[in-house]
């Protein structure tokens, strides 16, 4: 465990000090600022605009971070031979992968917390009753968990492919996962057996991110409880991340440097 924590700490320190992370954070804060600035467009329901625009920005920043960190950190360490100095210590390849994932997750968490504070402040300002519902916090947690799945996807893909492919494939997973319901419907309709099979496989293999999107519930003021987050969202995340990391380990364990 000490090795995993040491790798996670070094990964966090290494990534938090990179300029690109600051740029991403500023971009995220800018998106929240823009949502506030343009909220007058939906007169009377300004907070809804903040929710819709701000939370979308939150999701996109998470996706960007998952792709940048997950897709590049391991290939870069292999290219620069940093991995030699790590794996020649008493560290298993599984510990290395988990350490990298935890370090990147911690980096994303810090960015999400900073953005989250700005987002909640914007919501509080624009919400007529100055009341921040529990659902808003849960929505932010759900976005973070969705980002974790994307991060694990990127880590898994980066163990077998180039960074460029990882970026594209992770983006594809996000898009398909966000419209999983429609992909499932496509797998049940149409005449082509091939297309039905392809959509069927995609719907089953690619995570369903629609469970993680609480924007609609927030916009319609539908109550969301902790149970929703614990079951379909948190449980789903744990299972998916564990599965992806197990697959990543299987492939990485056989990899030669």
């Amino acid at each position, binding site marked *: 465990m000490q090795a995993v924590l040491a790798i996670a700490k070094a990964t966090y320190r290494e990534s938090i000090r990179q300029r690109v992370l600051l740029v991403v954070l500023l971009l995220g804060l800018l998106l929240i600022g823009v949502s506030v600035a343009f909220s007058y467009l939906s007169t009377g329901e300004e907070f809804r605009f903040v929710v819709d625009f701000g939370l979308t920005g939150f999701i996109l920043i998470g996706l960007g971070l998952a792709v940048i960190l997950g897709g590049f950190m391991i290939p870069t360490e292999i290219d620069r031979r940093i991995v030699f100095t790590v794996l020649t210590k*008493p560290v298993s390849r599984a510990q290395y992968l988990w350490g990298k994932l935890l370090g990147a997750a911690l980096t994303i968490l810090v960015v999400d917390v900073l953005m989250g504070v700005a987002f909640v402040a914007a919501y509080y300002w624009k919400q007529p009753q100055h009341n921040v519902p529990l659902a808003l916090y849960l929505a932010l947690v759900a976005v973070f968990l969705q980002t974790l799945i994307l991060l694990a996807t990127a880590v898994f893909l980066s163990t077998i492919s180039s960074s460029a492919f990882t970026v594209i494939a992770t983006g594809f997973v996000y898009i398909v996962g966000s419209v999983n319901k429609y992909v499932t419907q496509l797998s049940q309709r149409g005449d082509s057996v091939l297309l039905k099979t392809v959509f069927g496989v995609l719907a089953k293999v690619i995570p369903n991110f629609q469970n993680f999107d609480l924007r609609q519930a927030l916009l319609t003021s539908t109550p969301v409880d902790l149970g929703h987050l614990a079951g379909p969202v948190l449980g789903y995340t744990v299972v998916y991340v564990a599965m992806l990391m197990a697959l990543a380990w299987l492939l990485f364990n056989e990899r030669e440097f």
Partner: protein
Amino acid sequence: MAEAPPSREVVIRTTDLCKTYRTGLEQMVGAAGVAALSSLNMEVLRGEVFSMIGPNGSGKTTTLKLLMGLIFPSSGQVEVFGENPRTNTEVKRRIGFMPDGPYFYGHLNGYELLEFYGGLLGMEPAHTKRRVAELLERLEMTTRARQRVRTYSKGMLQRVGLAHALLNDPEIIFMDEPTSGLDPVGTRDMHTLVRQMKAEGKTVFLCSHFLTEIEDLCDRVILLDRGRTLRYGTLDELLAEPGMMRVTGSALPAAAREQLARLGRLSAADDAGETVEVIVADGADVHAALECIRSHNGHLDGVAPMRRTLEEVFMEAVERQQADRPWEDAERGLGSKIAAEAVHPEPVAAGEQEV
């Protein structure tokens, strides 16, 4: 510092170790791939300075990676302290590895970097702190330790690389080109350090292109070329020229020098030509050379077994290998087929005669 003699305990052993690199496609179609290492058999003893030498592409880095568990053997066995480093990572607690031209996390500073490696080694934080301070002091890096690693020069990176390899006070230290990029002072310090480690009873496994360095530091050497072992043994075994003696004399007249030249290979041992040395076959020729010096009232400065330099042994072995297997150069695209044919011409066809 008195050196501890090497023991007979084998700490590293390779048995018929082979490594062939195959791409994914080559694996699928069962193609041969590129053989990087063929049947490597070697043993490294506790407390010795062992060196692996060879031209580029000879299999040195492949061997190091196999010993570290970074790549896996195609066949044969690797043992470090009797364990397979691939399956038993615990064995890595007892070794240190200093890579060639090391790269590290550039956004960490020297302290943070070494503390990170201490964490990987499972060291207690307080112990790590003490050890890091001690090593930085020893390697004269204390004043630079708070700078980010990305700002370090190559020499500073080498020092940090060495510090990270020594952090756990390893029993075996693997060093890949340890003096590459170091200035003369840094090189001397590195040599001193290797001698200190040997004196402390540690095993040093050294890969270097600097043959004089190897000759100066090592107990035993293995010479590889194209994955094959060309020479393997103690320096004395490798450098000795059996049956040949070196006779050195001075204050000799021209007639004596001519007489010595007829006995063997004559060379002037100094620029003025006053001291001459002759390489002669052991036995009657040595007696004849001694008699010649005595009869011309010259000074006999020394008689010693003939010993070649490591560079001479290296060049001879590699050139012989290239002459024996010229097609391999062509296969490797080295463009030396023509040169190889010049050394080792195609056999003359039956019925043809060279004029």
